[in-house]
């Protein structure tokens, strides 16, 4: 049992802290307050971060990346998110698919796509699975309805596949250079058997970006529609096998989901909570009510206690799971952790509002920004479907054992 960080981990943590303090945080609120869906985006901070390695942090050393583990990635996300949750996500979104490429792509695919990814500071990655009528069903396919889930069609045509359909809310959609697209190659069976995952570069003929989502939280972060009208994708861009089910197409953790995905949102939440805790304490130590600093009122102390208590519980959980995932350990812990991060980020950002009160909320829009960012967790990390899914990963006793 050892919680200390090694030198590499400390170095990355420190580098991320400085970048968050000097480059992210100074622009964070201003970007949030820009009207529009695409407009809050800023290539400047992405390029600066990319030069420091934050875009390609998860690429393995043998492919030319820094080759960091989950613990390091977790530490970096906590720091970046403290500067801005959405900007942190714009970086870490690329790590998720870096993991996917490393684990699931062929050498030829790695050659064709990792190289440009590593060399171009504006090369971003995204994955398209959600569709207007297929969100949660992709994550927990219902037994009673095998046709549930994504519908985007892919039909074989010689050495190519022809894709038709639409994806929605796709992360990095409006700024990505390469997308991992889940399509149905066989509509007669469920998505675990009839789904296939394709590599689709942004310049693919017949593929274009639709509407960019204009969100109340994570405004910097881009989500957009991807539209496929007879889009032609070479068979060489199929990841793993055809029809083996895109969610697990290469037989391993191809989604970045159960090992990295849960960590990503949970670590980000810790950063937001750290930010909230700092804001709340600073406000309480510099504003008075009834002749006393807020920090000297028990009501405020109880709020500050709860904020810090929940944040430290979450941080402990996240560091533990990061280590477990570095060991390749799979359990319910990943999903339980990300569910938990939802409860914590929502509560902590709410308590930050309570401590600021009307005056503080009015005078500092960052108080509301943190709560708006936190709302994103509700559907990405802590919705009912994900909570039910966690239970499927717990061990169940047999009937005889249970009744004993």
């Amino acid at each position, binding site marked *: 049992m050892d919680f200390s960080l090694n030198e590499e981990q400390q170095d990355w943590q420190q580098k991320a802290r400085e970048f968050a303090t000097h480059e992210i945080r100074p622009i964070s609120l201003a970007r949030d307050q820009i009207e529009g869906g695409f407009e809050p985006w800023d290539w400047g901070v992405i390029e600066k971060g990319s030069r420091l390695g934050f875009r390609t942090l998860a690429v393995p050393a043998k492919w030319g990346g820094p080759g960091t583990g989950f613990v390091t990635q977790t530490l970096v996300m906590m720091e970046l998110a403290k500067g801005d949750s959405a900007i942190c996500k714009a970086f870490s979104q690329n790590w998720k698919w870096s993991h996917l490429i490393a684990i699931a792509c062929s050498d030829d695919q790695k050659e064709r796509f990792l190289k440009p990814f590593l060399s171009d500071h504006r090369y971003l990655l995204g994955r398209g699975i959600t569709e207007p*009528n297929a969100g949660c069903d992709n994550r927990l396919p219902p037994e009673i309805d095998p046709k549930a889930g994504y519908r985007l069609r892919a039909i074989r045509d010689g050495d190519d596949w022809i894709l038709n359909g639409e994806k929605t809310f796709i992360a990095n959609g409006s700024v990505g250079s390469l997308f991992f697209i889940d399509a149905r190659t066989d509509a007669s069976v469920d998505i675990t058997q009839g789904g296939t995952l394709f590599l689709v570069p942004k310049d693919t003929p017949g593929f274009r970006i639709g509407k960019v989502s204009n969100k109340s939280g994570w405004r910097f972060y881009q989500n957009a529609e991807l539209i496929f009208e007879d889009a032609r994708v070479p068979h060489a861009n199929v990841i793993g096998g055809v029809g083996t089910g895109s969610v697990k197409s290469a037989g391993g953790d191809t989604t970045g989901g159960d090992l990295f995905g849960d960590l990503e949102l949970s670590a980000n939440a810790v950063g937001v909570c750290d930010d909230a805790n700092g804001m709340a304490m600073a406000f309480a130590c510099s504003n008075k*009510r*009834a002749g006393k600093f807020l920090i000297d009122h028990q*009501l405020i102390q109880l709020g500050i206690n709860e904020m810090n208590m929940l944040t430290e519980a979450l941080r402990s959980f996240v560091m533990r799971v990061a280590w477990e995932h570095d060991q390749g350990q799979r359990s319910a812990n990943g999903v339980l952790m990300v569910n938990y991060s939802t409860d914590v980020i929502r509560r902590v950002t709410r308590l930050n509002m309570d401590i600021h009160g009307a005056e503080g909320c009015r005078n500092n829009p960052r108080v509301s920004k943190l709560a708006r960012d936190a709302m994103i967790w509700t*559907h990405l990390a802590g919705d009912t479907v994900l909570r039910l899914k966690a239970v499927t990963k717990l061990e169940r006793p047999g009937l005889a054992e249970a009744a004993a």
Partner: protein
Amino acid sequence: MFNLHLDAEQIEFRDTVRSFAANEIRPVAIHPDRLEPFAKPLMMDLLGQASELGLRVLTLSEAAGGVGADTLTSCIVLEEMAAGDVDIAVTLGETDLLGHLLFDNWMTPDQSERFLKRFTEDPAFHLGHGGSTPEVSGWNYHEDLPNETGAGVSAVMQDGDWVIDGSVSLAANAPIADLMVVPVRSDWAGGMSALVVPRDTPGLTIAETGEQTQVRWHHGSAANIQFRSCKVPSENLLGEAGNSPLSGGEYDALHTLQRAAINLGVGQAAFDAAVAYAKIRRQGGRNIVEHQAIGKFIAGMAVKLEAARTMIWKAAWVADHPEAIADRSVSDLPQQIIASIFTAETVLEVTQTAAECFGAMAVMRDMPLQKYVEDANMFVHSNGNDVSTSLQIAEAVVGYERTPAA
């Protein structure tokens, strides 16, 4: 005799406003084109139409030319209006409340003479409140300290006129008000005084804040106002100098109640949206309304809204029937504060739960859920609601008597 029947007029009012909100207001208020931009200008046409329905003078006595409705009716109506648009409800409520208090209670016949006719005859005539929102904080719990008042406006008597100086941030209804009611510090013995100040008085500047941020932290129509050697005649004093009727508690109590009713309307709108969506959204092979998890959400929201509404109606009725406290039919706790904090917390939970039913759609700016959540957040953290508010209830429970400040 205990009786929860509404009378026919109350039900008719409710139906009228509900249908007006559903058919006229909501289609405009939550249209994606209006929802998406940060700025949400007050919908003046619809405010005018609501005014034509009599809602601007709802609680003004019939004798003065109003509808003469009681506080309960006002709460019922404001909830329905708020389910259409929270800002119209807040704006109308402010004018209606000030109108009732000014013309039914506070003004002398001479003062009424000067303002009442224009008020009742011009549907665009609004009243504003040139002070801070009611202070119902409990920070001085069990301390003899008075709570801070935000008053930054003073007035001195000069040659028979009041000369006013100072500024107020986010004065309610200031952008549209024709007449402002302004609490002022004066050199008189005792507490605050109150003056009425017509909008066009020289020395009064009303500056719309023009907030273009994601969340402007107030409801209704508000502006920063400034007084620079602004003169009004001595006849513009309400009640006695040093004894402002605004400080008497009546305005604060009714204002608190109004806001609770409006707050509830936001929760109801979110709930209705969630139930409608749950009936059509398919997931896991069935409409989501059929999932136990969503059923639990719906039940939880329904219980909470029912409870909040019941508490508001009780407090509203008690406001008009203080004798029910004396005869011990209801408790002597501050019902309007109870209703207000209960509703604020409840509606925030309801809007968040409703948002959960919508999944990712809940955070899209062209959809109403994100607005409902933010409106609810504001009610929890504005208008005197904060984490200390409930301590006032604790003081009432234990019968703490504050020694007045020297």
